[in-house]
């Protein structure tokens, strides 16, 4: 289904072109209307087909710079892709979450790495992992312990990372490591691009409560990283992480609202008008209202990102709204499909339960909702700071 990529157009026109293409190819794309349910490895493999199609037709390359294998145009064109995929009743591949976390980081701070790896990722040939959290450094990320010691030409990395999404399938990882003194907090960190095939690396999936093992832990034992593996500057790891967060929070929230709006449409169609109770119906309406607010808010954030503006601490509003939406949508499903939640054994019920668990984690990963509230209290509402 390879098509000639069209030159980038204004955002709304681009969206219409993409929607038309998705409709035209609906039959070939039908396998991606549901995610593969035979385990997460099958799902990752399955998604590669969709990634390859979107790459070959050019759609996933818009919004990325030409130097890194993209077709240029504003960042908003990436947002259009995620939105139109969900609107065309397709599953948005999880790889796009990782792409939006690490892609902007590489393109902005390590174009030499982006030139090599971004095209591979977009083709579906390579996945990356995010190595930030550690067993002893979650919300308190600045006190991470993984060390990177200079070996004359590059670095040697030793330590442990955890909660790496799809880490067991990743070829490379962006690892935040301490290059400064042990007490250097956020000042002594460096972001490194680590080859997960290098000697000394062990990656293990974590058995998840949801039954879907989407996280892994990574162990590094004196792992070599060449000098060109530094993303940004030595000692500039915190700045790199803060740069990445605007996309991890902003564009991720946009992706998820696209998915959640699709879930609402699916749920409404599945339940139909079979007279459920008023409170259960209200739970659906509540989820619709919350998702509407998120979409409106997130659209302005995407526009700001697209204009090259960093929304700063206000992006935490999007993150808090998103957590509420994730939970409201899955709670509406739980209420309206209570039998599925409790007893269901088919793919739809299993996916529904997995998503319910995922929604509970959405107020924890990528910066806990409570931390987002502290950021907003300190830096947006200008409240007096207190003990954490």
């Amino acid at each position, binding site marked *: 289904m390879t098509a000639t990529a069209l030159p980038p157009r204004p*955002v*709304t026109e681009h*969206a219409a072109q993409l929607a038309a293409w998705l409709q035209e190819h609906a039959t070939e794309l039908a396998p991606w209307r549901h995610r593969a349910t035979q385990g997460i490895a099958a799902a990752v493999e399955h998604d590669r087909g969709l990634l390859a199609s979107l790459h070959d037709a050019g759609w996933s390359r818009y919004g990325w710079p030409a130097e890194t294998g993209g077709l240029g145009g504003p960042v*908003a064109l990436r*947002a*259009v892709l995620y*939105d139109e995929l969900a*609107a065309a009743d397709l599953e948005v591949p999880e790889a796009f979450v990782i792409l939006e976390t690490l892609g902007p980081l590489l393109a902005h701070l390590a174009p030499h790495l982006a030139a090599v790896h971004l095209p591979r990722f977009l083709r579906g040939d390579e996945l990356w992992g995010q190595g930030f959290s550690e067993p002893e450094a979650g919300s308190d990320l600045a006190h991470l312990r993984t060390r990177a010691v200079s070996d004359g030409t590059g670095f040697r990395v030793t330590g442990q990372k955890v909660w790496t999404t799809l880490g067991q399938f990743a070829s490379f990882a962006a690892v935040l490591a301490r290059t400064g003194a042990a007490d250097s907090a956020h000042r002594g960190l460096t972001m490194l691009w680590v080859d997960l095939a290098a000697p000394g690396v062990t990656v293990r999936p974590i058995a998840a409560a949801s039954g879907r093992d989407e996280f892994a832990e990574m162990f590094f034992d004196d792992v070599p990283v060449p000098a060109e593996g530094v993303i940004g500057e030595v000692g500039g790891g915190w700045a790199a992480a803060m740069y990445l967060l605007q996309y991890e929070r902003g564009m991720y929230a946009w992706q998820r609202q696209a998915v959640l*709006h699709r879930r*609402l*449409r699916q749920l*409404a*169609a599945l*339940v*139909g*008008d079979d007279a*459920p109770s*008023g409170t*259960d*119906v*209200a*739970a*659906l*309406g*509540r989820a*619709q*209202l*919350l998702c*509407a*607010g*998120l*979409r*409106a*808010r997130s*659209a*302005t954030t*995407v*526009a700001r990102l697209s204009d090259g503006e960093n929304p700063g601490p206000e992006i935490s*509003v999007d993150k*808090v*709204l998103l957590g509420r939406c994730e939970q409201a949508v899955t709670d*509406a499903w739980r209420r309206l499909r209570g039998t599925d939640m409790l007893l269901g054994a088919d793919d739809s019920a299993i996916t529904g339960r997995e998503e319910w668990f995922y929604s509970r984690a959405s107020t924890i990963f990528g910066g806990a909702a*409570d931390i987002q*509230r*502290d950021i*907003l*209290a300190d830096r*947006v*509402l*200008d*409240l*007096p*700071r*207190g*003990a*954490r």
Partner: protein
Amino acid sequence: MSEHVDELAALAEELLAAGRDQELLAQLADPDVEDLRADPQVAGAVMRVHGRYCVSSGLFDLLVVGAGRSVVLPVPGQESGRPSGAAGSRLVGLVRGGPQDELVLPTEDGPRFLPRDHVVSEAVSGLDPLLGLTLVRSDYDPVVGTATTATGDVLGYAARLLADELVGVAEGALALALEHVRERHQFGVPIGSFQAVRHRLVDAYVDAEGARSLLAAIGPDAAPDVQALVLKASAGAAALRCVAAAQQVCGGMGFTAEFDLHRYVRRALALDALLSGSEAAEEHLGALALRGRVLPDRQVVLT
């Protein structure tokens, strides 16, 4: 038009801060500014400031249906008394402030009109005496006329402007609470430094942000049920959340007549109840979705 929006919002801010609400009303009632006040962005911005200062005047009627007219709203909880506009139906409705010369009844078939001398009016004190609600009754049949608002849909537009006002109420209550928790000390520190207080206010602020974003993203041309069930419900829920958070963190002060918070509490509850309360709207929205109309879905578009 955007420079006019800022200009008018600044004027409203200046006059309402000084308690000169009648002067604002008079300025906006000037026939020379008719086009300006009919602009939904201008009207929305003015209503938001109006909400923030928690005042009441004839502004709502002026902006929704124009000078010399009042819009008749359904009485919450009295579905049977809804002004249907059908011949022979007995009218019971609410207007904000005293009825003007002509009353406009929004019906599903478009607006209907009644002269003031065809209605019996009774001022209502109730929950929010400063809101100045008047109960109107009539046994006359309203007549067909022409719509005067830019949208041509009175009820949807009324809901939209109530949403703007409710966002203002949310902001006003939040501002009071933020000021209080910065100043009020307990245990030797400002209470705004306690995480429980901070998080409560942040949650309320996030609600207000969601409602504000929706109003900015969905225009007055969206369907009337989107205006009422999405924009107004979202703003109503945000206002209720903000006044509840403010009531908690302001402690005893919030329960004195001297402290302005009770005005915001009354206003949020009263405005939320008009044209379908936010809780009822949730159920209504869900029911519509189950019948195949999922609102507002993707009405907000990227630009």
